[in-house]
């Protein structure tokens, strides 16, 4: 489409992790002065490709040319020296240091004694930020600034270290609309200077607004590439989910009929719930026996919301009622006493890896079992019951839970809340990283619980998880509930389109 040769040209890139193929025969072109969007599901290969370009992954096959010359980076430092910098989703700033120190991190001007020349550092950093139109007091600790500004300063740092190609990983996921506006202004300005950017995002609208071209990945392959002027959001979704592939298409367009159970009494009610930087003005109701899904992209706030309801991140504002009683949730102990139960998304943070299975199960009912003395025999009996009911393998309650597979660990964690049923069970990513059999078991367990009258709130970034479990779905976006699916047929593509 363009006459000049590409600035960056990748051909036939292949990358494996062990036996798993992450990228297969990928070609990719990036032109000077272009903002190039990358779209694709989690695990489609976008991030892997970017890490190859940025010198993070070094063992791949295929060729890379920069300015027409073949290159092969051995490290991220190598790539940066060649002018390729990456801004990760998790910013690599030092929050305690000043803006100036962060911008010049690793390149602070020094005097003859090797000591940092503070005055020069301040003026250099201020000049550099000024030239990019970022106005900020460079003596402020960067952690005190809003996230959008932190991100722009990180971009400024990457540019300061000489990057001509800047890779941005999900740059808008945590930003408010005006912050996004300012970020886009900066990106346009950089483009005008002739720099190129690769813009990885789940937010297809953002890609359409800022990018000149877009490439779509699916299952480790590049499936389509086009100028953004020629396409629309449905085009991207179609390619992401693979129109024509019967099975995949079905998984996306396959409809799930939602059936509300809103006649049952409300067991959990939240109103005006807010935690700064995570979510705001959340209003929701969970009915007895209902599974309410909370879907949103990474960073949309749904995982923080459940954590907050369980008191790990106590809500700053708003009211919570559990089975009609107003509860001020100040700690996890309070939340548990009020009848809530919670499984976080990370198994590492909910299990005692070196303790036997039975102690991992009994921990949350210990105060019922043992006012004073522990009763290991009772604990083991209860654990045995759960292990056979949930088909935990191997069926040995004495094993350290860390030696079990991921799916079985998840079942152990679930078992913890099953001997004395809570009013409401909060689940974060309940099936992430599990094999198919374990996933089905978890779905069955949750279904069984709701049939017994427990209200369930499932928060996830995976549409499949929510669709497989929920009776009603709330979609969250940037910390707010933006859509509700109830009493209707819903499919993965409609869920994605709403987020």
């Amino acid at each position: 489409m363009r006459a000049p040769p590409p600035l960056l040209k990748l051909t036939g890139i292949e990358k494996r992790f062990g036996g798993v193929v992450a990228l297969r025969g990928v070609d990719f072109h990036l032109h000077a002065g272009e903002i190039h969007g990358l779209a694709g599901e989690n695990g489609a290969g976008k991030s892997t490709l970017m890490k190859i370009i940025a010198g993070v992954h070094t063992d791949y096959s295929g060729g890379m040319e920069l300015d027409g010359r073949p290159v092969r980076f051995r490290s991220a430092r190598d790539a940066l020296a060649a002018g390729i910098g990456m801004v990760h989703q998790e910013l690599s700033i030092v929050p305690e240091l000043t803006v100036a120190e962060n911008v010049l991190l690793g390149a602070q001007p020094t005097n003859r004694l090797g000591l940092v020349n503070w005055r020069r550092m301040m003026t250099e950093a201020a000049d550099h930020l000024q030239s990019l139109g970022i106005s900020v007091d460079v003596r402020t600790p960067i952690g005190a600034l809003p996230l959008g500004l932190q991100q722009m300063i990180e971009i400024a740092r990457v540019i300061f270290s000489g990057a001509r190609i800047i890779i941005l990983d999900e740059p808008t996921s945590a930003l408010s609309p005006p912050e996004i506006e300012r970020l886009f202004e900066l990106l346009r300005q950089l483009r005008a200077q002739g720099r190129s950017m690769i813009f990885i995002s789940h937010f297809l609208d953002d890609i359409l607004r800022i990018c000149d071209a877009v490439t779509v990945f699916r299952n480790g392959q590049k499936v389509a590439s086009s100028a953004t002027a020629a396409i629309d959001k449905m085009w991207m979704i179609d390619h992401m989910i693979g129109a024509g592939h019967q099975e995949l298409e079905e998984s996306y367009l396959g409809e799930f009929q939602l059936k509300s159970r809103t006649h049952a009494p409300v067991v959990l009610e939240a109103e005006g719930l807010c935690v700064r930087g995570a979510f705001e003005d959340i209003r929701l109701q969970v009915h007895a026996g209902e599974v309410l899904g909370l879907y949103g992209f990474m960073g949309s706030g749904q995982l923080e919301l459940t954590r907050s309801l369980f008191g790990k991140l106590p809500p700053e504002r708003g009211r919570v009622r559990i089975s009609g009683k107003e509860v001020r949730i100040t700690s996890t102990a309070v939340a548990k006493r009020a009848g809530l139960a919670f499984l976080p998304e990370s198994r590492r943070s909910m299990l005692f890896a070196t303790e036997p299975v039975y102690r991992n199960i009994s921990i949350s009912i210990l105060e019922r079992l043992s006012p004073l003395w522990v009763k290991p025999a009772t604990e083991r009996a209860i654990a045995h019951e759960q292990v056979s009911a949930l088909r935990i393998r191997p069926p040995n309650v004495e094993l350290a839970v860390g030696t079990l597979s991921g799916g079985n660990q998840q079942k152990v964690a679930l078992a913890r809340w099953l001997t004395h049923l809570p009013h409401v069970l909060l689940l974060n990513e309940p099936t992430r990283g599990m094999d198919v059999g374990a996933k089905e078991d978890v779905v069955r367990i949750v279904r069984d619980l709701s049939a017994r009258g427990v209200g369930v709130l499932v928060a996830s970034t995976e549409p499949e998880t929510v669709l497989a479990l929920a009776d009603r779905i709330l979609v969250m976006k940037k910390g707010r509930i933006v859509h509700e699916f109830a009493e209707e047929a819903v499919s993965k593509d409609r869920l994605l389109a709403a987020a």
Partner: protein
Amino acid sequence: MEGSATKTASTLPPPRAESWFAAKLRNIAPFVTLIFLVALFSIASPSFATLDNLNNILQQISVTGIMAVGLTFVILTAEIDLSVASVANATGVVVAFFTAQDNSVNIANVPLAGWAAILIAIASSAALGAITAVGMTVIGIPSFIMTLAMLQIGAGICALLVRGQIAYAVPKLVATLGNGSLGPVPWIILVAAFVLAAAHVVLTYTRFGRYVYMVGGNREAAEYSGVNVRAIVAAVMIISALCSGLAGMLGVAHFGSAQQDEFDNYLLDSISAVVVGGTSLFGGQGGIGNTIVGLLVLGVLNNGLDHVNIDSFLKILIRGLILLAALIVNVYAQRLRSRRRAAAS
């Protein structure tokens, strides 16, 4: 391919000898050290392996032992208490301050009945522990600095009460337990044994004890299980202060005087005992059994070095090296465990 993940887990081989050793290393190493030291000194000196000397060793470790009990609770929750010796000293001084002293003692003290003095002393150690607990759990000060501050506060209380003087008299009950004997066995050994045994029962057989281990093993998981982590941490800090208070009162009686700085060595000794015994500094692993072995290792080492007539300056260095070795084993055992955990998950 997906289904094989569960299959491999269910057919996991039983733990091999290597991993068994890794799991038990922290328990085996101190015990082997103890046997080695006992054998060494028994051969080197005929006066070492006698009943009389056993009595000596046990007496020498009793005060440290009571303090180490509280520290065991604290270290099991992955916290630290640097104020144990200082709180002990302060409590010892308080009990003497409220006891009638000889005319030669020039302290503006407030003589009370023995039981009152004891109650006030116990209450003041509990109060110091409570302040530490509030600082840590309500305000959020890390235990290392909070107890460092408490160390200073304890020293300050001692300084104010005795003003550079020395008090001798303590209530009769305290004098008996600290310095008397039941038949051939000094009371202080019995008290230490009782405190150790009680702590073992609490840690092993009560719900509270289970929580202590779970909070130390994975604080986040304990919180997600609905355990009131802050209450557990607060409780162990108060237990630690109470143990220190008891050690302080009996120590004052045992040494025969109450004065500034007389417990200075006991902070390092009690931490050493817990860590040398193999209780993990990272929390969740170890217990009173380990602490007892650790106490015996230190007691045998201190006592044995006297019997073999070694340069007393070298003695300090040797103790330091033993502590270093124990720390290396402690960290190494932890690394083996976390590597196994990483391999398993």
